[in-house]
């Protein structure tokens, strides 16, 4: 079978052993790669007895069958682990160049186990795999490490953690190519615990393609679609993702000051239009991407990639800050320290509300743009209040007596869409397997942008169908792996055909979406095995009980209960949200789940 290299690299840092073994091709057919393969491998490798920050937790870096084939945006890869922030299964994915390079080095996945005694980095080149001393790199920031290790976009790529990962911040990201991130849920802390500072890769060969002619046709058609769609040909390159700021604000779904309001008076000042007008230097793109949504921006102090919409929101509206330069600098600092910008900004916003309510004694107050940088520094090094911030908003708010002020689901901070103004988005957050997340089937397209057609954002009945379909599609895309932005112009039917052409195995559109459903259900089973229950599929009480006081979403809370009940039924789960045996059987998960249950119990 083409598409997959057929090899998994397995490194145990505790005794510095390096192994290579074959990828089980049946596993590949069922779970594809990336997020799906990661979930399947983690199911076996990390059971409930293993704490996320124990050296026994593993990091699984995985590419997919499309990675590095040259199909549009086939640059992506993912990391899977048990999250130190949420305790759920976690996968985070990233673009750039590293994933493509790793695949070209000849592997589908890299499993990292154990803990090195001293800081190390791993180097993977055509000459072999070595584990090197990283004493001189420990403590260094992301830009410096990336440069020192010889980053060269098309030849040699560096993935690393910053000080936040070394200091075990639960929102530490893993950064690749110096600017992209595997951000959410704290994978950087798992890497820090392993004393692993960086992984450098140099590849050689592109993976094989079975049906070249078919593949070329799909490339041709996909290019046409990406060029024709005003979203991928104009909107994203011209204004980047932050251009939705004004729109989300207008509809009354822009969470403001820790979700106390849904419209921000400073939205225009921090919008994509303002970013483009005042700070944009140029666009950039990941490997093999004709879209180029990435912004390089510059203030008087810094120049770097971003900020994206969610980041601008997290340090902007969420913290009541309308100073775009300060936001760009906060984003830059997070990239240098290796931090997830959404959780970092949202946790600072939570601390601001705690302070204003007199529950916390700090200088963090809404609107204090000058406090962003010091708070981020403190968080990354766990200094003073930063030690609390680094544990995320849920632990922070719980410690100071008001857990309901953490705007998170399962402990993962919610992104930039208020579920009271977008009902389906609320269901998405509540059911997402890694905690509140917008990349698991974003309802922005259907509820706001009208992609492919508009569904009223206040409609409740039938919403579960859309959420489920998009969750399944997102899981499939994350397993292939391509960038979700292509999906704004190119339908999943193309991805299924690309997969068929590359691998030589027939996958219909239905098969591909079903693979996504399989991945979703396995992740669900993983979380259930960890002890999560129906009661964790919820939203902060503010969103369920405090109707919005103003704006176009005035009077609304999120009507989660009826949507969730419909969701469980439509997924083929029981009332407690447990996949039925019939469902597991239909998805060919029965054996995996049942046999592993006993292995884990016997451990």
């Amino acid at each position, binding site marked *: 079978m083409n598409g997959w290299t057929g090899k998994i690299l397995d490194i145990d840092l505790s005794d510095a052993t390096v192994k290579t073994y074959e990828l089980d091709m049946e596993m590949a057919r069922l779970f594809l790669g990336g997020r799906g393969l990661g979930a399947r491998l983690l199911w076996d490798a990390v059971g409930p007895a293993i704490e996320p920050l124990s050296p026994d937790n593993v990091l699984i870096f995985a590419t997919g069958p499309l990675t590095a084939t040259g199909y549009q945006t086939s640059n992506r890869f993912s990391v899977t682990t048990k999250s130190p922030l949420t305790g759920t299964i976690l996968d985070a994915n990233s673009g750039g160049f590293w994933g493509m390079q790793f695949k070209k080095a000849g592997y589908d996945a890299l499993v990292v186990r154990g803990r090195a005694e001293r800081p190390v980095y791993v180097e993977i080149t055509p000459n072999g795999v070595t584990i090197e001393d990283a004493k001189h790199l420990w403590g260094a920031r992301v830009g410096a490490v990336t440069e020192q290790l010889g980053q060269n976009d098309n030849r040699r790529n560096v993935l690393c953690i910053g000080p936040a990962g070394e200091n075990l911040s639960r929102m530490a990201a893993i950064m690749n190519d110096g600017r992209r991130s595997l951000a959410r849920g704290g994978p950087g802390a798992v890497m820090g615990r392993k004393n692993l500072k960086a992984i450098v890769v140099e590849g050689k060969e592109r993976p094989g393609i079975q049906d070249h002619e078919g593949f070329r046709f799909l490339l041709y058609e996909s290019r046409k679609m990406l060029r024709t769609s005003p979203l991928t040909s104009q909107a994203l390159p011209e204004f980047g993702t932050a*251009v939705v700021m004004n729109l989300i604000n*207008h509809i009354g779904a822009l969470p403001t000051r820790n979700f106390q309001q849904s419209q921000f008076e400073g939205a225009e000042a921090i919008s994509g239009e303002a970013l483009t007008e005042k700070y944009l230097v140029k666009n950039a793109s990941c490997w093999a991407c004709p879209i180029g949504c990435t912004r390089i921006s510059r203030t008087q102090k810094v120049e770097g990639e971003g900020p994206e919409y969610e980041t601008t929101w997290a340090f902007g509206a969420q913290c009541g800050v309308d100073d775009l330069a300060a936001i760009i600098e906060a984003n830059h600092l997070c990239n240098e320290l290796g931090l997830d910008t959404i959780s970092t900004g949202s946790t600072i916003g939570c601390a601001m509300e705690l302070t204003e309510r007199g529950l916390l004694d700090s200088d963090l107050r809404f609107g204090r743009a000058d406090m962003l940088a010091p708070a981020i520094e403190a968080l990354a090094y766990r200094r003073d209040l930063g030690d609390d911030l680094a544990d995320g908003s849920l632990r922070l708010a719980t410690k100071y007596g008001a857990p309901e002020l953490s705007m998170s689901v399962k402990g993962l901070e919610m992104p930039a869409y208020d579920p009271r103004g977008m009902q389906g988005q609320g269901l998405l957050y509540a059911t997402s397997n890694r905690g509140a997340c917008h990349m698991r089937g974003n309802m922005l397209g259907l509820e706001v*942008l009208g992609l492919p057609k508009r569904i009223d954002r206040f409609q409740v009945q039938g919403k579960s169908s859309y959420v489920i379909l998009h969750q399944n599609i997102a899981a499939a895309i994350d397993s292939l792996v391509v960038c*979700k932005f292509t999906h*704004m112009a190119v339908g999943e039917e193309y991805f299924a055909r690309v997969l068929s052409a590359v691998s030589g195995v027939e996958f219909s559109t239905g098969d591909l979406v079903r693979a996504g459903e399989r991945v979703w259900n396995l992740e669900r089973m993983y979380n259930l095995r960890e002890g999560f229950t129906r009661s964790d599929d919820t939203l902060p009480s503010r969103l369920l009980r405090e109707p919005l006081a103003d704006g176009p979403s005035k009077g609304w809370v999120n009507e989660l209960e009826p949507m969730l009940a419909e969701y469980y039924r439509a997924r083929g789960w029981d009332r407690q949200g447990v996949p039925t045996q019939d469902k597991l059987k239909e998805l060919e998960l029965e054996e995996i789940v049942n046999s592993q249950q006993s292995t884990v119990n016997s451990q």
Partner: protein
Amino acid sequence: MARVTLYGGLRRHVSAPMQQLDSVTMRDAELQAALFENDRPRPHVRVLVNGRNLEWMRGLDTPLEQDHQVAIFPPIAGGTP
């Protein structure tokens, strides 16, 4: 007079992003040709009146009132990949 604000690339076509609109419904608005096609907003163009999409109101016949805020967006997309 309702107040209209244009966003994104649409700003290139006007002198100021914000304008007073001297019309009773969107049907009378001068912007029509640029923004509409067969009585519907052009694909991916969004027109909001006080935060609600025209599609869920009375389309182009939605009555505009004094204090109405009309927001018009060109094709845009978002979400962090």
